[in-house]
């Protein structure tokens, strides 16, 4: 059919009108024959449905010419209350809008409307309600899949596994969902996608005209969510939701009883029961750990091939040790919490000494209080660091007060110009700043350590720092030499063990490592390395699983786990493990996604991502995996891009 130019233009104009106005016309016809309704700039279309906390419309954004899902909270906002007024609410919504993951439905923006919504029982306009615009995704929910009965276990596991991976990304961004259930998972053409992330919870937290109703759904929400304080909830509350969702899918009912559960395969039931344990301490620690359990469930053991020789992966193995040991640069008495640290007498005295310095004393005083907070925050963060590159931006975000970082640098420079030694407190903070923002091949980092050692030749912490720097540079002998001069304590022992590993490889003192691993579970990653090197992939896998149980995002452990699984002949799982790691590296924020001083963290994590990607592409232990089609066609292009 050939159309003249004029006809084509007329047709395009009419089709544009069809696209933009059809939802509006449908809504008008259904509810308001005489009135087109808008919320914010969005034109309401089809009414999709109403849930416990909100109602959803298909709507059109006439500015960007796209269809969106518009969720309006059912409960009216109290008169005079400011929407998103709590900093945490605003931060959560902001984080949700910035979070991009293939398994999550994107959040676009939030606002307040007074539009009359008869679907919510309004008799007149004027009721204030909060709304949130989200990406429109075609497809029914997982609850719809249950309408014809229970899902086959492998399909249900695969579906929930993908949701758990997406949720893990959200948790890394500091967001909890807290209303997980099959009805919150859309089965889109691109796979399952979780929606309402952080939206219901935060919207519901605002002051309302009606009494507060806790977000969450009976049968899916964790006990502590229903009865405990909201600010004490963590990722394990969502793990409960994941477990309950899986249980619902494999039994075909939202509230399975003992008889329903008795029909579930025992190993699967074990995972579900652990995830939904009443005691959060007994659940999987994170969505990633839950995902790992599901992967394990899907795995099928096969005979192991012979071990192969390999090059020692120093760079990955030592990073965890270095970051942990940096925390030891905090006061010797080792306060474990921020509050304890703030109260530490030695620290207070140090700050007082800082204030007594003859040079620029007033300036020193002006930063003393902030400095104290800064070191407290650094200590708390390092103590709980998961060693994942994605954590680096949050590390750098500690230094969000750019003015403070500038003051620290200025003070140190002032001391140096005047020929006086900067206070040790300042120097250590500067060192931490340098560490958080530079890469191991950054000459500035080496210089910072050299300056520090020169300024404090007899200082134990500074010598330890020098030893760490040697460790990072791959000079195990120099690291051991520097550590030998120091008194024996936990940090020194750890550094010595890491240096021993670097210097002596499989001949390292195994007893010392075993002893240390009892206290520092991430060292199981290094033990896994030793087992792999000794040709014992089964033992290696056990160690790596222990490392990942406490540090689910430990990149080096995932890398080595792929090797171990490959050695055990479980190639599909090995590739899944690699795919997970590649996706994590890909999701690591780059400098272009960061602002202000956070940019430093972005640069640092991008550098880490580059180094890890390059290592995956060259590690001789992965040679066979790299020959597979999936690696070549799917993983290699991503790694090549990341390594650039």
């Amino acid at each position: 059919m050939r159309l003249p130019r004029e006809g084509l233009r007329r047709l395009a104009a009419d089709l544009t009108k069809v696209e933009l106005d059809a939802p509006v016309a449908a809504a008008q016809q259904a509810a308001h024959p005489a009135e087109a309704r808008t919320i914010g700039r969005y034109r309401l279309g089809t009414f999709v449905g109403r849930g416990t906390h909100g109602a959803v419309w298909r709507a059109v954004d006439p500015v960007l010419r796209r269809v969106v899902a518009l969720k309006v909270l059912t409960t009216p906002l109290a008169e005079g209350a400011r929407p998103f007024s709590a900093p945490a609410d605003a931060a959560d919504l902001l984080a949700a809008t910035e979070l991009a993951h293939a398994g999550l439905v994107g959040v676009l923006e939030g606002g307040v409307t007074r539009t009359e919504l008869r679907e919510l029982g309004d008799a007149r306009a004027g009721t204030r309600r909060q709304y949130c615009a989200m990406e429109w995704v075609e497809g029914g929910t997982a609850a719809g899949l249950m309408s014809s009965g229970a899902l086959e276990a492998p399909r249900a596991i695969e579906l929930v596994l993908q949701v758990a991976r997406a949720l893990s990304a959200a948790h890394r961004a500091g967001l909890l969902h807290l209303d997980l259930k099959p009805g919150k998972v859309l089965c889109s053409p691109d796979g399952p996608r979780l929606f309402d992330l952080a939206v219901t919870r935060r919207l519901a937290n605002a002051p309302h005209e009606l009494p507060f109703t806790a977000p969450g759904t009976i049968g899916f929400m964790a006990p502590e969510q229903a009865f405990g304080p909201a600010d004490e909830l963590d990722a394990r509350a969502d793990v409960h939701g994941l477990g309950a969702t899986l249980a619902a899918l494999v039994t075909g009912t939202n509230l399975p009883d003992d008889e329903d559960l008795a029909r579930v395969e025992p190993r699967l039931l074990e995972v579900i029961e652990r995830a939904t344990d009443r005691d959060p301490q007994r659940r999987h620690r994170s969505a990633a750990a839950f995902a790992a359990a599901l992967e394990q469930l899907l795995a099928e053991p096969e005979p192991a091939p012979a071990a192969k020789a390999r090059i020692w992966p120093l760079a990955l193995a030592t990073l965890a040790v270095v970051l942990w040991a940096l925390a030891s640069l905090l006061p010797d008495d080792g306060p474990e919490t921020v509050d304890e640290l703030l109260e530490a007498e030695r620290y207070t005295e140090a700050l007082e000494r800082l204030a007594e310095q003859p040079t620029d004393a007033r300036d020193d005083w002006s930063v003393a209080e902030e400095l104290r907070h800064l070191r407290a925050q650094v200590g708390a963060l390092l103590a709980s660091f998961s060693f994942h590159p994605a954590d680096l931006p949050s590390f750098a975000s500690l230094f969000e007060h750019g003015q403070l970082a500038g003051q620290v640098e200025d003070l140190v420079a002032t001391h140096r110009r005047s020929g006086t030694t900067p206070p040790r407190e300042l120097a250590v903070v500067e060192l931490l700043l340098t560490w958080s923002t530079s890469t191991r091949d950054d000459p500035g980092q080496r210089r910072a350590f050299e300056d520090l050692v020169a300024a404090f030749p007899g200082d134990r912490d500074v010598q330890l720092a020098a030893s760490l720097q040697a460790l990072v540079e791959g000079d195990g002998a120099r690291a051991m030499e520097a550590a030998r001069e120091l008194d024996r304590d936990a940090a020194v022992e750890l550094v010595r063990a890491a240096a021993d590993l670097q210097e002596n490889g499989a001949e390292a003192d195994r007893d010392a490592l075993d002893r240390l691993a009892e206290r520092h579970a991430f060292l199981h990653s290094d033990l896994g390395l030793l087992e792999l090197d000794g040709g014992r992939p089964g033992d290696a896998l056990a160690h790596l699983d222990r490392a990942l149980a406490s540090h689910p995002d430990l990149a080096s452990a995932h890398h080595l786990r792929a090797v171990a699984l490959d050695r055990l002949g479980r190639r599909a799982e090995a590739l899944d493990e690699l795919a997970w790691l590649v996706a994590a590296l890909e999701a690591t924020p780059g400098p272009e996604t960061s602002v202000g001083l956070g940019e430093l963290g972005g640069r640092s994590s991008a550098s880490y991502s580059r180094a890890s990607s390059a290592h995956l592409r060259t590690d001789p232990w992965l040679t066979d995996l790299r020959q597979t089609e999936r690696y070549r066609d799917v993983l290699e292009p991503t790694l090549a891009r990341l390594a650039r």
Partner: protein
Amino acid sequence: MGAERAHPDELAFPLTAWGRVLTAGASDEAARRRALEQLCRASLRAIQWHVRSRWAKTDTEAHELTQGFLWTLLEGGLAAPADEPRFRSWLKTNLGSYLRSQRRAETPGARAGDLAFVPATSEPPTWAAEASFDELFACCLIEDAAGDLEGRVQGDDLGAFRAAYIEQPGASAAELATTLGIDEGALGRSLARAQAELSTLVRGRLRSTLASDRDLDGELSLILERVLGEDLP
């Protein structure tokens, strides 16, 4: 349980043609080629019109260049970005690259051997000389979708469609109603049904050229804007 693991495709709808091209592995080369050929065939007129009008080629040259371009494309002889989510953009990039390389070499287009999938006659409209590749792509896609309307809508609706967009595109609703011997209300209902069906057909064709359905609304807006001659923001 591992052996029973669900294939990812079982969790989602089937891949689009362009999705198959992007994700096919080495062992799926035949499927990849089939999907690419299907997309190329659907875009033939746009390519040929573009070559003739914008590159000022004769009928014969345009035919040979188009043939050579598609042959090179199917043989994988072009270095196109492998992660472009839109087939249209990928095609445009490669077409420009191919035509520039042919111009530099001052040689006729690469021969496609016995492969003859380009129709010899495909006269571009006069306005094609002013149109961008995107506009040609969009117009051809809408025209092809309109061709599928026959048999999918009732005779009266198709008659109204032809009158409004082919026979009397400049006529008012009243004039069209008079011509067709119906009242304006009936005309409006007929056109609305035809437009709704056409919208579905256009979406279906467009969907096959995208890696993900997420881009569908945006791509549809873009091609409609191109036909309307509006600049993108």
